[in-house]
Protein backbone atom coordinates (compact mmCIF):
# COMPACT_ATOMS: atom_id res chain seq x y z
CA UNK A 1 0.00 0.00 0.00
CA UNK A 2 2.95 2.27 0.79
CA UNK A 3 3.62 3.26 -2.81
CA UNK A 4 0.09 2.88 -4.11
CA UNK A 5 -1.50 5.79 -2.32
CA UNK A 6 -2.34 8.27 -5.08
CA UNK A 7 -0.79 11.74 -4.85
CA UNK A 8 -4.23 13.28 -5.20
CA UNK A 9 -5.17 11.51 -1.97
CA UNK A 10 -2.85 13.91 -0.18
CA UNK A 11 -4.82 16.79 -1.65
CA UNK A 12 -7.99 15.38 -0.08
CA UNK A 13 -6.28 14.72 3.25
CA UNK A 14 -4.99 18.29 3.18
CA UNK A 15 -8.51 19.57 2.49
CA UNK A 16 -9.82 17.68 5.53
CA UNK A 17 -6.93 19.04 7.63
CA UNK A 18 -7.65 22.60 6.50
CA UNK A 19 -11.37 22.20 7.20
CA UNK A 20 -10.75 20.91 10.74
CA UNK A 21 -8.31 23.74 11.57
CA UNK A 22 -10.80 26.26 10.21
CA UNK A 23 -13.84 24.93 12.06
CA UNK A 24 -11.85 24.69 15.32
CA UNK A 25 -10.70 28.30 14.78
CA UNK A 26 -7.04 27.30 15.06
CA UNK A 27 -6.42 29.66 12.12
CA UNK A 28 -7.78 32.65 14.05
CA UNK A 29 -5.41 35.37 15.26
CA UNK A 30 -7.77 35.82 18.22
CA UNK A 31 -7.39 32.18 19.33
CA UNK A 32 -3.59 32.47 19.21
CA UNK A 33 -3.73 35.60 21.38
CA UNK A 34 -6.02 33.79 23.80
CA UNK A 35 -3.50 30.94 23.95
CA UNK A 36 -0.41 33.10 24.56
CA UNK A 37 -2.34 34.97 27.28
CA UNK A 38 -3.37 31.67 28.96
CA UNK A 39 -6.98 32.82 28.93
CA UNK A 40 -8.66 29.69 27.55
CA UNK A 41 -8.07 25.97 27.35
CA UNK A 42 -9.21 25.66 23.71
CA UNK A 43 -5.82 25.67 21.94
CA UNK A 44 -4.07 23.68 24.67
CA UNK A 45 -6.85 21.07 24.51
CA UNK A 46 -6.47 20.81 20.74
CA UNK A 47 -2.67 20.51 20.72
CA UNK A 48 -2.60 18.20 23.76
CA UNK A 49 -5.29 15.81 22.54
CA UNK A 50 -3.78 15.80 19.02
CA UNK A 51 -0.41 14.72 20.44
CA UNK A 52 -2.07 12.04 22.61
CA UNK A 53 -4.08 10.57 19.73
CA UNK A 54 -1.04 10.74 17.42
CA UNK A 55 1.13 8.91 19.98
CA UNK A 56 -1.51 6.19 20.49
CA UNK A 57 -1.95 5.87 16.73
CA UNK A 58 1.78 5.46 16.21
CA UNK A 59 1.91 2.80 18.90
CA UNK A 60 -0.97 0.87 17.35
CA UNK A 61 0.81 0.91 13.98
CA UNK A 62 3.82 -0.67 15.71
CA UNK A 63 6.09 0.89 13.13
CA UNK A 64 8.24 3.47 14.85
CA UNK A 65 9.15 6.01 12.19
CA UNK A 66 12.67 7.22 11.64
CA UNK A 67 13.23 10.54 13.40
CA UNK A 68 12.68 13.37 10.98
CA UNK A 69 12.82 17.08 10.62
CA UNK A 70 10.18 18.88 8.63
CA UNK A 71 11.08 18.82 4.94
CA UNK A 72 14.40 17.02 5.25
CA UNK A 73 14.97 15.23 1.96
CA UNK A 74 16.68 12.22 3.54
CA UNK A 75 17.13 10.50 6.87
CA UNK A 76 18.21 12.74 9.72
CA UNK A 77 21.98 13.31 9.84
CA UNK A 78 24.06 14.33 12.85
CA UNK A 79 24.83 17.61 11.15
CA UNK A 80 21.09 18.34 10.92
CA UNK A 81 20.66 18.00 14.67
CA UNK A 82 23.91 19.77 15.55
CA UNK A 83 24.33 20.61 19.22
CA UNK A 84 20.67 21.43 19.66
CA UNK A 85 20.96 25.21 19.50
CA UNK A 86 18.85 25.33 16.39
CA UNK A 87 15.78 24.05 18.25
CA UNK A 88 15.93 26.69 20.97
CA UNK A 89 16.94 29.61 18.82
CA UNK A 90 14.96 28.74 15.71
CA UNK A 91 11.97 27.79 17.84
CA UNK A 92 12.01 31.14 19.66
CA UNK A 93 12.29 33.08 16.39
CA UNK A 94 9.35 31.15 14.97
CA UNK A 95 7.37 31.72 18.19
CA UNK A 96 7.77 35.49 17.87
CA UNK A 97 6.52 35.30 14.28
CA UNK A 98 3.66 33.01 15.32
CA UNK A 99 2.34 35.55 17.84
CA UNK A 100 2.90 38.51 15.48
CA UNK A 101 1.05 37.05 12.49
CA UNK A 102 -1.30 34.98 14.62
CA UNK A 103 -0.60 32.05 12.33
CA UNK A 104 1.83 29.17 12.13
CA UNK A 105 2.61 27.76 8.65
CA UNK A 106 -0.56 25.62 8.33
CA UNK A 107 -2.95 28.48 9.12
CA UNK A 108 -0.84 30.83 6.98
CA UNK A 109 -1.85 28.77 3.93
CA UNK A 110 -5.37 28.02 5.17
CA UNK A 111 -6.18 31.70 5.76
CA UNK A 112 -5.37 32.44 2.12
CA UNK A 113 -7.89 29.77 1.12
CA UNK A 114 -10.31 31.11 3.71
CA UNK A 115 -10.36 34.50 2.03
CA UNK A 116 -7.90 36.54 4.11
CA UNK A 117 -6.08 37.48 0.93
CA UNK A 118 -3.49 39.73 2.59
CA UNK A 119 -1.98 36.56 4.05
CA UNK A 120 -0.46 35.99 0.58
CA UNK A 121 2.02 38.69 1.65
CA UNK A 122 2.76 36.80 4.88
CA UNK A 123 3.34 33.60 2.90
CA UNK A 124 5.73 35.41 0.54
CA UNK A 125 7.52 36.88 3.57
CA UNK A 126 7.76 33.41 5.11
CA UNK A 127 9.29 32.14 1.85
CA UNK A 128 11.81 34.99 2.02
CA UNK A 129 12.55 33.99 5.62
CA UNK A 130 13.16 30.34 4.73
CA UNK A 131 15.31 31.38 1.76
CA UNK A 132 17.35 33.74 3.98
CA UNK A 133 17.89 30.92 6.48
CA UNK A 134 19.25 28.81 3.64
CA UNK A 135 21.60 31.61 2.66
CA UNK A 136 22.93 32.13 6.21
CA UNK A 137 22.77 28.49 7.32
CA UNK A 138 26.53 27.81 7.47
CA UNK A 139 27.09 30.90 9.63
CA UNK A 140 24.37 30.19 12.21
CA UNK A 141 24.92 28.13 15.38
CA UNK A 142 23.30 24.69 15.16
Amino acid at each position, binding site marked *: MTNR*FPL*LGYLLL*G*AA*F*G*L*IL*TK*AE*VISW*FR*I*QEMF*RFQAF*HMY*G*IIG*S*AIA*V*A*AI*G*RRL*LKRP*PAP*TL*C*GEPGPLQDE*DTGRGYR*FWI*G*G*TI*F*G*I*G*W*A*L*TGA*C*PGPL*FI*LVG*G*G*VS*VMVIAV*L*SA*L*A*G*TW*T*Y*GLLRSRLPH
Partner: protein
Amino acid sequence: MLPEALTHTWPWYVAGPLIGLFVPLLQLVGDKQLGISGNLRHLCSAILPTRIDFLKYDWRGTGGWNLLFALGTLIGGWVGVSLLGTREIAISPETQASLHNLGVHDLSGLVPREVISWEGLLSIRGFVSIVVGGFLVGFGTAYAGGCTSGHAISGLSNFQLRSLFAVFGFFAGGLIATHLLLPLLF
Protein backbone atom coordinates in the same frame (compact mmCIF):
# COMPACT_ATOMS: atom_id res chain seq x y z
CA MET B 1 -30.04 23.85 6.23
CA LEU B 2 -26.71 22.49 7.29
CA PRO B 3 -26.59 20.59 10.55
CA GLU B 4 -25.38 22.68 13.46
CA ALA B 5 -22.35 20.44 13.88
CA LEU B 6 -21.00 21.81 10.60
CA THR B 7 -21.73 25.48 11.18
CA HIS B 8 -20.75 25.80 14.82
CA THR B 9 -17.23 26.02 16.24
CA TRP B 10 -15.81 22.55 16.71
CA PRO B 11 -14.79 21.97 20.34
CA TRP B 12 -11.21 21.04 21.20
CA TYR B 13 -12.11 17.44 22.08
CA VAL B 14 -13.41 16.90 18.55
CA ALA B 15 -10.81 18.86 16.57
CA GLY B 16 -7.71 17.82 18.57
CA PRO B 17 -8.17 14.04 18.19
CA LEU B 18 -9.10 14.48 14.50
CA ILE B 19 -5.89 16.45 13.92
CA GLY B 20 -3.90 13.82 15.82
CA LEU B 21 -5.28 11.08 13.54
CA PHE B 22 -3.39 12.59 10.61
CA VAL B 23 -0.09 11.40 12.09
CA PRO B 24 -0.84 7.63 11.98
CA LEU B 25 -2.92 8.12 8.83
CA LEU B 26 -0.06 9.70 6.85
CA GLN B 27 2.32 7.10 8.23
CA LEU B 28 -0.05 4.31 7.18
CA VAL B 29 -0.77 5.46 3.63
CA GLY B 30 2.73 6.47 2.62
CA ASP B 31 5.24 6.56 5.50
CA LYS B 32 4.89 10.34 5.56
CA GLN B 33 5.36 12.65 8.52
CA LEU B 34 2.87 15.40 9.19
CA GLY B 35 4.58 18.79 8.88
CA ILE B 36 3.59 21.93 7.01
CA SER B 37 6.67 24.16 7.24
CA GLY B 38 8.71 21.86 5.00
CA ASN B 39 6.56 23.22 2.18
CA LEU B 40 8.13 26.66 2.58
CA ARG B 41 11.48 25.01 1.86
CA HIS B 42 10.08 22.98 -1.04
CA LEU B 43 8.60 26.14 -2.58
CA CYS B 44 11.90 28.03 -2.17
CA SER B 45 13.70 25.09 -3.75
CA ALA B 46 11.27 25.13 -6.67
CA ILE B 47 11.28 28.89 -7.19
CA LEU B 48 14.78 30.18 -6.40
CA PRO B 49 17.36 27.55 -5.42
CA THR B 50 20.34 29.60 -6.68
CA ARG B 51 23.65 28.54 -5.14
CA ILE B 52 22.09 27.59 -1.80
CA ASP B 53 22.91 24.02 -0.72
CA PHE B 54 19.93 23.99 1.67
CA LEU B 55 17.62 24.38 -1.32
CA LYS B 56 19.32 22.00 -3.74
CA TYR B 57 17.46 18.72 -3.60
CA ASP B 58 14.72 16.88 -5.43
CA TRP B 59 11.79 18.94 -4.13
CA ARG B 60 9.29 17.14 -6.36
CA GLY B 61 10.28 13.70 -5.11
CA THR B 62 10.68 14.74 -1.49
CA GLY B 63 7.93 17.27 -1.10
CA GLY B 64 5.45 16.70 -3.94
CA TRP B 65 2.99 14.91 -1.67
CA ASN B 66 3.31 17.61 0.99
CA LEU B 67 2.83 20.49 -1.45
CA LEU B 68 -0.40 18.81 -2.57
CA PHE B 69 -1.39 18.42 1.10
CA ALA B 70 -0.77 22.15 1.63
CA LEU B 71 -2.77 23.02 -1.50
CA GLY B 72 -5.54 20.86 -0.07
CA THR B 73 -5.54 22.85 3.17
CA LEU B 74 -6.36 25.98 1.16
CA ILE B 75 -9.40 24.20 -0.26
CA GLY B 76 -10.35 23.08 3.25
CA GLY B 77 -10.09 26.66 4.48
CA TRP B 78 -12.24 27.87 1.60
CA VAL B 79 -14.90 25.21 2.28
CA GLY B 80 -14.75 25.91 6.01
CA VAL B 81 -15.28 29.63 5.62
CA SER B 82 -17.47 29.90 2.51
CA LEU B 83 -19.79 26.94 2.69
CA LEU B 84 -20.05 26.26 6.38
CA GLY B 85 -20.04 29.86 7.50
CA THR B 86 -18.17 31.56 10.29
CA ARG B 87 -19.38 33.01 13.48
CA GLU B 88 -17.67 35.59 15.58
CA ILE B 89 -14.82 33.82 17.30
CA ALA B 90 -16.02 33.20 20.84
CA ILE B 91 -12.82 34.13 22.62
CA SER B 92 -12.85 34.49 26.38
CA PRO B 93 -14.04 37.78 27.97
CA GLU B 94 -10.54 38.19 29.48
CA THR B 95 -8.98 38.09 26.01
CA GLN B 96 -11.56 40.54 24.69
CA ALA B 97 -10.62 42.93 27.50
CA SER B 98 -6.89 42.42 26.89
CA LEU B 99 -7.31 43.16 23.19
CA HIS B 100 -9.40 46.28 23.87
CA ASN B 101 -6.60 47.52 26.13
CA LEU B 102 -4.17 46.79 23.32
CA GLY B 103 -6.20 48.92 20.93
CA VAL B 104 -7.86 46.14 18.92
CA HIS B 105 -11.58 46.94 18.90
CA ASP B 106 -13.06 44.97 15.99
CA LEU B 107 -13.14 41.39 17.24
CA SER B 108 -15.22 40.00 14.35
CA GLY B 109 -13.90 37.60 11.73
CA LEU B 110 -10.88 35.30 11.80
CA VAL B 111 -8.30 38.07 12.11
CA PRO B 112 -8.41 41.68 13.40
CA ARG B 113 -9.12 43.58 10.19
CA GLU B 114 -7.65 46.80 11.63
CA VAL B 115 -4.27 45.07 11.54
CA ILE B 116 -4.36 42.00 9.29
CA SER B 117 -5.79 43.45 6.07
CA TRP B 118 -4.60 45.30 2.93
CA GLU B 119 -5.38 48.63 4.63
CA GLY B 120 -3.69 47.46 7.82
CA LEU B 121 -0.58 46.51 5.85
CA LEU B 122 0.11 50.22 5.34
CA SER B 123 0.26 50.85 9.10
CA ILE B 124 3.35 50.09 11.15
CA ARG B 125 1.62 47.48 13.34
CA GLY B 126 0.07 45.82 10.29
CA PHE B 127 3.36 45.77 8.37
CA VAL B 128 5.26 44.29 11.32
CA SER B 129 2.51 41.72 12.01
CA ILE B 130 2.21 40.56 8.41
CA VAL B 131 5.61 41.12 6.77
CA VAL B 132 8.06 40.87 9.70
CA GLY B 133 5.95 38.20 11.43
CA GLY B 134 5.74 36.15 8.24
CA PHE B 135 9.49 36.43 7.70
CA LEU B 136 10.21 35.22 11.25
CA VAL B 137 7.81 32.29 10.78
CA GLY B 138 9.70 31.23 7.64
CA PHE B 139 13.16 31.84 9.07
CA GLY B 140 12.42 30.28 12.47
CA THR B 141 10.71 27.13 11.20
CA ALA B 142 13.53 26.47 8.74
CA TYR B 143 16.10 27.07 11.49
CA ALA B 144 14.25 24.87 14.01
CA GLY B 145 13.44 22.23 11.38
CA GLY B 146 9.69 22.26 11.95
CA CYS B 147 6.58 24.10 13.09
CA THR B 148 3.57 23.34 15.25
CA SER B 149 2.57 20.32 13.18
CA GLY B 150 6.11 19.03 12.53
CA HIS B 151 7.62 19.47 15.99
CA ALA B 152 4.68 19.76 18.41
CA ILE B 153 2.38 17.10 16.95
CA SER B 154 4.61 14.83 14.80
CA GLY B 155 7.75 15.19 16.92
CA LEU B 156 6.28 15.05 20.43
CA SER B 157 4.04 12.09 19.55
CA ASN B 158 7.28 10.35 18.48
CA PHE B 159 8.90 11.30 21.83
CA GLN B 160 11.67 13.33 20.17
CA LEU B 161 13.48 15.38 22.79
CA ARG B 162 14.63 18.00 20.29
CA SER B 163 11.01 18.64 19.38
CA LEU B 164 10.31 19.40 23.04
CA PHE B 165 13.13 21.96 23.03
CA ALA B 166 11.69 23.48 19.85
CA VAL B 167 8.20 23.68 21.38
CA PHE B 168 9.63 25.41 24.47
CA GLY B 169 11.20 27.86 22.03
CA PHE B 170 7.85 28.36 20.23
CA PHE B 171 6.19 29.34 23.50
CA ALA B 172 9.09 31.45 24.73
CA GLY B 173 8.95 33.41 21.47
CA GLY B 174 5.16 33.66 21.51
CA LEU B 175 5.14 34.97 25.08
CA ILE B 176 7.87 37.52 24.30
CA ALA B 177 5.95 38.78 21.28
CA THR B 178 2.53 38.83 22.99
CA HIS B 179 3.55 40.42 26.29
CA LEU B 180 6.55 42.58 25.33
CA LEU B 181 6.39 43.38 21.61
CA LEU B 182 2.65 43.82 20.96
CA PRO B 183 2.18 46.49 23.68
CA LEU B 184 5.04 48.48 22.10
CA LEU B 185 3.78 47.95 18.58
CA PHE B 186 0.01 48.43 18.96
